[in-house]
């Protein structure tokens, strides 16, 4: 039981972290609430389905192709439909909703509303203390943690990472330090979409691939970034694991209330906001400009 909670919590938390960190980065760097963020995750899952199940490519090649294509799509969307009207924050919001709708409808048109599954790289399971854990889960866990570590390293240790974080915290000062905020926003968009795509590719074998699979993660990601504090990367990471574990715990400990896991996570978010209106690691608003 505890092992299960641990592994499931880590996987959920990890995938949410992949999505939430990207969302948070874009929000910080470009001040965009990107509703389409998890839609990238959805189309990545469809790409991997197409490449591996339909076309029978080697799984690793399929993964690589899916991530690269989705990243390019993400950059295209930013360049064509977000950048031109970036200053109208609320209009950008609608555009991103519409972009998500476009993705969803395109997928629906091509694949229909069928629930698709994708085979994992590995089958079989490992028995740890009498608890069965599938290899696919373990693999996913390792990859998620690995990607998170790489992201962490990029953000913390490289020149680009420092520029991204600086821009996320204060665009104006970053500009003053000689950082080309527009270019950094573009790079950030690419990184964020790539993380979402990796999340989608990883989740495809564990879950159902369907055109609406972006909605629940979207709500969760929004809850996570608010919980952790908008624009705070540390907050997103910790928030993701808090809510990932909350979901898992609710499922395990309240068998009758498993359908409440979404509502539960959101209530946690609201309670945190009541105590700390700027989220766990957010900057109090008087400070920001």
């Amino acid at each position, binding site marked *: 039981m505890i092992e299960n909670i641990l592994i499931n919590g880590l996987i959920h938390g990890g995938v949410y972290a992949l999505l939430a960190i990207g969302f948070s980065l874009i929000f910080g760097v470009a001040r965009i609430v990107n509703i389409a963020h998890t839609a990238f995750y959805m189309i990545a899952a469809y790409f991997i389905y197409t490449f591996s199940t339909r076309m029978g490519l080697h799984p690793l090649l399929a993964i690589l192709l899916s991530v690269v294509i989705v990243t390019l799509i993400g950059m295209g969307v930013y360049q064509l439909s977000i950048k031109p009207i970036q200053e109208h924050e609320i209009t950008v919001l609608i555009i991103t909703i519409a972009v998500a709708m476009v993705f969803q409808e395109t997928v629906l048109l091509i694949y229909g509303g069928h629930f698709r599954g994708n085979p994992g790289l590995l089958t079989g399971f490992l028995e740890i203390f009498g608890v069965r854990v599938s290899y696919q889960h373990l693999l996913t866990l390792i990859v998620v943690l690995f990607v998170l570590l790489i992201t962490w390293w990029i953000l913390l240790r490289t020149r680009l990472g420092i520029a991204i974080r600086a821009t996320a915290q204060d665009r104006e000062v970053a500009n*003053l*330090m*000689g950082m*080309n905020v527009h270019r950094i926003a573009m790079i950030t968009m690419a990184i964020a979409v790539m993380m979402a795509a990796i999340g989608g590719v990883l989740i495809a074998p564990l879950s159902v691939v369907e055109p609406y699979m972006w909605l629940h993660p979207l709500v969760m990601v929004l809850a996570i970034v608010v919980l952790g504090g908008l624009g*705070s990367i540390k907050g997103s990471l910790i928030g993701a694991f808090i809510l990932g574990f909350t979901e898992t715990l609710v499922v395990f400990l309240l068998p009758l209330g498993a359908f409440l896991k979404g509502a539960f996570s959101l209530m946690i978010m609201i309670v945190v906001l009541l105590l700390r209106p700027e989220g766990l690691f957010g900057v109090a608003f008087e400070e920001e400009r």
Partner: protein
Amino acid sequence: MLLEVHHLSVCYDTAMILNDLSLSVGEQELVSVAGPNGAGKTTMLRAISGLVRWEKEILRGSRYGDITIEGRVHFSGERIDQLPAHEIAERGLLLCPERRRPFREMTVIENLMAGAYLLKDKEAIKEHLLTVFRLFPVLKERSRQVSGTLSGGEQQMLAIGRALMSRPKLLCIDEPSTGLAPLLRKEVFQKISEVRDSGIPVLLVEQEVSTVFKMANRNYVLSSGKIIAEGTAQELLQDEVLRKTYLGL
């Protein structure tokens, strides 16, 4: 002259913040600009460093109305008022903004590295870091601390240090003494004159006239977006009207 500002005017919608302002800063100089609240001191620095243009671009077409900028700014003989802020920084004009604004979630050392963004040479970065640490030993002590938790004085040192990391040709500092205790103010001003002495000219905007005028080579007095007086500390402080009305002495 290193920096020359000619007839600069800035309007936010219909409100005129700067009105035909001209000033200049020479090599090796520390120049101060003083004036009452709302005189347009901060806007002047933001206009020179390219932030007003940036703001104009961001607010374009929104309901907050348009920003208009007129006039010319020359830096090392090159016209820079049409350049975006990050390119102005690339040319060596750095602004240390009002209220210090460190990258709060990042540590002191990361803040300094962010300041060194324009440099690609690792050796040069190391060298500049040593220089900054020599100037502000306190930053070395706190280098692993998250900057949001520093005291106000330390944050000010960090902000100046961050701007110095890219070895600017001109450092503009906006109101460094705000919210600091008198003792700390003195220390900050001391550091700023050390910066000038190390060969980096400084354009300093400050309300705390008594200290600044003495240490600056030349001073300007700004009111309602216009330069109303210019000169050394002695010249300006002799003028009774100026002292009473504009400098509050």
